[in-house]
């Protein structure tokens, strides 16, 4: 498996945003700050901290994280809406992620708009964010069920306006690894921006899909600690980092010795137990005794 040039990927951790959207998890502002600090210490370079437009409680936590003096870049998640962006800016964010749906299902049935409307709306939103001096990354929601050419159109507009990367989201986790392999082999050379992959775990494939996309040229992985997140969750930070280093022999500057502590911190803050058989952080994998019984 070890390839000639050990490529380095980066993590965009979304434990504090998509992770907190896990059913029954609510972090306090202090929890969020503690997790952000631990991610920073572990070497995670991008932290998606939350959604400021959600209200005062969220904004309080965001301000605490922004003023903690982290080395990591702290990002606010936004819909392509003026209010979302203004809330993030007034909270003090200078790095904004702006998400738009790119599948016709989402555009037509959720927004009840057209593809053209989405492009125009995205453009206005990026310009608004930039008018406050913000750096922008763009998210393509439901990209896996959308038209690939339209995804590229969104990426092109984002690139022309100076966005730094585009997120490809498998919003309902409906990709399989071999499909990811062929999609990304075709997509990556044609995409004008670095691609970040955001995979969901509805079929237990989030980690595999993330790694195959990275191997095919995606440069960043969106993850959560313990894989917490909407429904069955997201790709787990500890699995992506470990597999990328061990199985693929590649690089990612996240310190693996910090992973058990991160898992513990998040599970405690979210009042959850780790399943014994969860890779990397589950007891069956960490307890040396369990392995000896064999």
């Amino acid at each position, binding site marked *: 498996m070890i390839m000639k040039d050990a490529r380095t990927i980066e993590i965009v951790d979304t434990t504090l945003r998509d992770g907190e959207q896990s059913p029954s998890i609510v972090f*306090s502002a202090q929890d969020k700050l503690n997790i952000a600090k631990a991610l920073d210490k572990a070497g995670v370079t991008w932290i998606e901290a939350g959604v400021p437009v959600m209200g005062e*409680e969220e904004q309080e936590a965001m301000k605490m994280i922004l003023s903690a003096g982290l080395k990591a870049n702290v990002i606010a998640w936004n819909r392509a809406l003026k209010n979302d962006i203004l809330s993030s800016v007034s909270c003090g964010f200078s790095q904004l992620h702006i998400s738009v749906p790119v599948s016709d*299902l989402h555009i037509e049935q959720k927004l009840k708009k057209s593809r053209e409307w989405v492009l125009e709306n995205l453009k206005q939103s990026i310009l608004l964010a930039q008018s406050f001096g913000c750096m922008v990354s763009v998210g393509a929601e439901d990209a896996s069920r959308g038209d690939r050419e339209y995804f590229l159109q969104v990426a092109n507009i984002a690139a022309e306006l100076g966005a730094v990367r585009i997120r490809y989201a498998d919003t*309902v986790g409906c990709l399989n690894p071999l499909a990811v392999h062929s999609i990304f082999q075709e997509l990556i050379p044609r995409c004008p921006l670095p691609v970040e992959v955001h995979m969901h775990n509805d079929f237990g*494939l989030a980690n595999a899909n993330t790694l195959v996309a990275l191997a095919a040229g995606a440069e960043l992985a969106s993850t959560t600690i313990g894989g917490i997140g909407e429904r069955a969750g997201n790709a787990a930070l500890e699995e992506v980092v470990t597999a990328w280093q061990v199985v693929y022999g590649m690089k990612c500057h996240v310190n693996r010795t910090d992973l058990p502590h991160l898992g513990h911190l998040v599970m405690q803050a979210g009042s959850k*137990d780790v399943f014994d*058989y969860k890779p990397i952080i589950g007891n069956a*994998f960490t307890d040396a005794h369990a392995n000896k019984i064999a």
Partner: protein
Amino acid sequence: MIWADQTIQEGLRRGMDNGQINLLLELLQKLPVDVVDCKVADWEKHSLPKLDMSQQKYIRGKINGTLAEVTLADKLGFKNVIITCTPHLGQGLTSTVCTALFTAQRLGMNIGFCIDNASQFSIEELCFLWRDIPIDGIDTFIYGDKESLLDPVAASRILTALLIKIPACLEFHGHNAYGLATGNALAALQVGVKRIAVAVAGIGLQGHAAVEEVIMAQKRLLGDASKETRHLALICSQILSAMGLILPKTKAIIGQDIFAHESGIHVDGVIKNPQMYEAFSPEEVGLTRQLVIGKHSGNASIQAKFRQWNVSMSDNHAQILLKQVRRMAVRQKKQIDDPVLWELYQAIQAKQEG
């Protein structure tokens, strides 16, 4: 397609007794698994009785490549066996393994041959090891990825080659140390491997592909809808509970909360069309959709929640309620239970009227 279960083996490893194992076997038969693998040595260690006629058909005994274990398997009534070995790089099969193979054949056993550490070898080396087998009539060649070294792309490439080169039924036995087992198993299935090792919720030493994930992925992602799945969540949770394991509420496919929608965007989408944020419908696996009110709720989700109670709520009321809900959720660090939500609503109404 044959699914080879590894759940029972984990039950044995965890020290379950005869009664508990029988209950597990009973529950397991409700799942679309076809054979059950057990280590013969563990079967003996926990004093389980000789296999009966029906068990002989679907239980395979794993033998650690020694004559002593072949003899033990015979004594315990195993007719189907897997002879496993872990060869060293650059060396052929040991004489111990060869003796075990000869003996198993002489005893008329149906033999699967497993290289536990197959992923450490090249395709050519595996073919060499295959030719080294001293007997004919090996039914199944089992490719073991003991160290979890494969990713789905490598698995598909290697297994495609072996399907052509090895003249026996090919079986894939992957592990989950790095969270890739389901992806690898699915890749094996996609390239035409007909036998795959799985376990409920992916349990086992170093983990396995989760049976519920592979079955639903086969159904929804590869379009093979031949399996009945409506009781998948229930049966899997019964099996885990019989083993004393707590099923995580967000476990893919079978967790209680995987259809609980809270965030404003998601609830809004799911109300318009569930497909927006669900990869398959809850009924397909025997679960139910829930609208949860909490920190991430939006106006639309509050209104939708109350519509379920036949209350049509104004935007203004929804906004007031949402503020209270978010504050309370953060303070209590949990979602808002239905009765509490109802009380908050009544208080708002009373205030407006008063």
